[in-house]
């Protein structure tokens, strides 16, 4: 082995060690534990598929939590991407002070996942919070955002959409890389702004939309802080996302085997949806040099 190759491996070693110790070992351990009854205090007892059978046949909480999680992901991700693209499109214009606005719109995504913002969100949507103050000032009735199971998930969804900054920055970079001559040619041919957006911007952004879709979907499935701090998963489990259920089973009810089984179901759902996205991408994602017409 050459010294150069050794050096390369040396640079890679810390990452590979970290990957093995902190990712692969827990990953495989959780797979094993999902087939056991393990309460942390005594050795795991092999129970085969029992945890999975219980999950799908007799666990009402799992069904409720899974439903809530899917609703959350399928509303949050499209909304967030649409909003991020909309803001990125506006911020792509050469306006006075545009750099300030770009920074200002990115800030929520830095703060967004923090506990402090979740606490702030709780105050904004409380009975006498900012949102209800605004509604009553406009003559509407105050809304019970957290106490009504029909509304609570909406507030959590909104918090995630508000953290659109990272997706927006990626959209903005992609928008700036689109050749301006394409728009000029379209304008000469009489295309409106809307036509240019639909037939030039969107197709050229599809690789970035695809990337953001995958990233945001995976993150949304793993959401924990917002519902944990703001509603505690309630009322009536209406914001009880699967990560909260995993946490409660593992660390409040000490059923690490069952929690691992839920985690693996969540992993399989994410993997299947990601594979579906990759499979469908052949039909709607266009890369540079693509020969499709």
């Amino acid at each position, binding site marked *: 082995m050459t010294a150069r190759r050794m050096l390369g491996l040396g640079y890679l070693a810390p990452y590979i060690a970290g990957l093995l110790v902190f990712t692969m070992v827990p990953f495989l351990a959780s797979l094993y534990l999902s087939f056991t009854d393990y309460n*942390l*205090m005594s050795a795991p007892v092999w129970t085969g598929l029992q945890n999975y059978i219980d999950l799908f046949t007799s666990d009402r909480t799992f069904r409720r939590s899974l439903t809530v999680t899917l609703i959350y992901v399928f509303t949050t991700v499209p909304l967030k991407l649409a909003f991020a693209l909309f803001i990125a499109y506006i911020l792509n214009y050469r306006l006075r002070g545009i750099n300030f606005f770009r920074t200002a719109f990115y800030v929520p995504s830095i703060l967004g996942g923090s506990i402090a913002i979740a606490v702030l969100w*709780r*105050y904004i*949507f*409380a*009975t006498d919070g900012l949102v209800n103050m605004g509604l009553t000032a406009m003559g509407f009735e105050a809304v*019970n*955002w*957290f*106490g*009504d*199971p029909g509304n*609570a998930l909406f507030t959590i969804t909104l918090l995630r959409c508000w953290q659109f900054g990272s997706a927006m920055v990626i959209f903005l970079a992609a928008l700036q890389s689109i050749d301006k001559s394409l728009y000029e040619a379209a304008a000469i041919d009489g295309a409106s702004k809307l036509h240019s957006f639909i037939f030039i911007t969107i197709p050229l952004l599809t690789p970035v939309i695809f990337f953001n879709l995958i990233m945001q979907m995976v993150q949304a499935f793993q959401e924990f802080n917002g519902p944990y*701090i*703001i*509603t*505690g998963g*309630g*009322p*009536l*489990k209406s914001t009880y996302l699967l990560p909260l259920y995993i946490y*409660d089973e593992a*660390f*409040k*009810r*000490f059923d690490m085997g069952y929690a691992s089984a839920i985690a693996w179901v969540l992993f399989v759902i994410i993997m299947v949806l990601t594979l579906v996205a990759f499979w469908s991408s052949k039909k709607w994602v266009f890369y540079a040099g693509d020969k499709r017409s």
Partner: protein
Amino acid sequence: MKTLMTTAALAAMMTTSAASAADLRMSWWGGESRHVATQEALKICGEKHGHTIAPEFTGFDGYLEKLTTQMAGGTEADIVQVNWPWLPLFSKDGNGFADLNGLSDVIDLTQLTEEQRAAVTVDGKLNGLPLSTSGRVFFFNLTTLEEAGVAVPTTWDEFFAAAEALRAAKGDEYTLFNAVKETAQLLVTLAVVQKTGKDLVDPATNRVAWTAEELAAGIAHYGKMVETKAIRSMQEDAAAGNVNLYEKPEWAEGKIAGSYEWDSTYSKYAKPLNEGQNLQAVAHLRFDDAVVDGIYAKPSMFFAVSANAKDPKAAAQIVNCLLNEAEGIDALGDTRGLPASAIAAKRLTDAGAINPNVAAANAIVMAASGPTISPFNEHPEVRGIFIDTLEEYAYGMISADEAAEVIIDGANKVLRGFDPS
């Protein structure tokens, strides 16, 4: 030979040194005042016995999860503060913590009564030392009641009348009492215990002692509190989000005029009140046909020595100092309630170091009657089933009868897992 002897002497010195000057860790949960006092006590006791103790402290939220992870990995601190209901979780067979009977030459066990020691003994092994006896008591904001011209209720009938009188005098934004989550659960428990004299779990059968009818009546009692607006509904309460009672502006302003809380938490609920408001613990409200007061009293928490402690004797020395020696007693004060240790209780009472309101609340707990409480009342799964089902009842999804059936079935399922094999 000379070299060998020197080496042996050095090794002996090092061993002696390690035994007499240990590096220990201690973990606990609490608030700011407890953190400050405990660190000071550890410093004093450490200096006295020649050990160093690294403190590991946090709030109550998350402490159980942290301790569980540490216990699973065998990395828990040498001295651990444990909530009493967690004892069956960590020490099902009595081997979860060090047996302090074997360290009685270091710890003065006679400062605790036989009953107090029995509460933390599993299969003949003394798993810890209780710090205090704690119980749920009724706190009322006397200022609000006086302003409304309402007397402190002593029976449940008076309670409902007082709730109506309070709203009539002060307006609809005033409610007499708070009851959400585990407080709601324990108020239902109280109603059933007062009527039946039985705790949730029958120790003889290790199953729920209440019939579905008895529990349904307790749940209906909670329902009556909501219907008469003596408490806010769960929907109204949830509108503020996941917020503790003592953090709510309505509590600080006296618009929620009472709650059913641990006696030792008096300061936590009294401190946030606006200036001039007077919070006081009062004797248990009773039904006219109550069999017992229904006090929900238990050892609040205990200090345990880790089963994995490298130097259990050194850890026991520190525990004894904190609980039974003048330096530790003075430094800790009443930050964990009125001490269970006889010598500590006497010393602090004589010195006037006990907050009179905390002492009064504890006196109510000690004087009231009720069955012995099973730690399974606070088993996370039992509590989860109870609270979730009560919430479904509060949102009108199920009846009191259905809720009672669900709770009893769910609790029995958990209890079956603890049957002797």
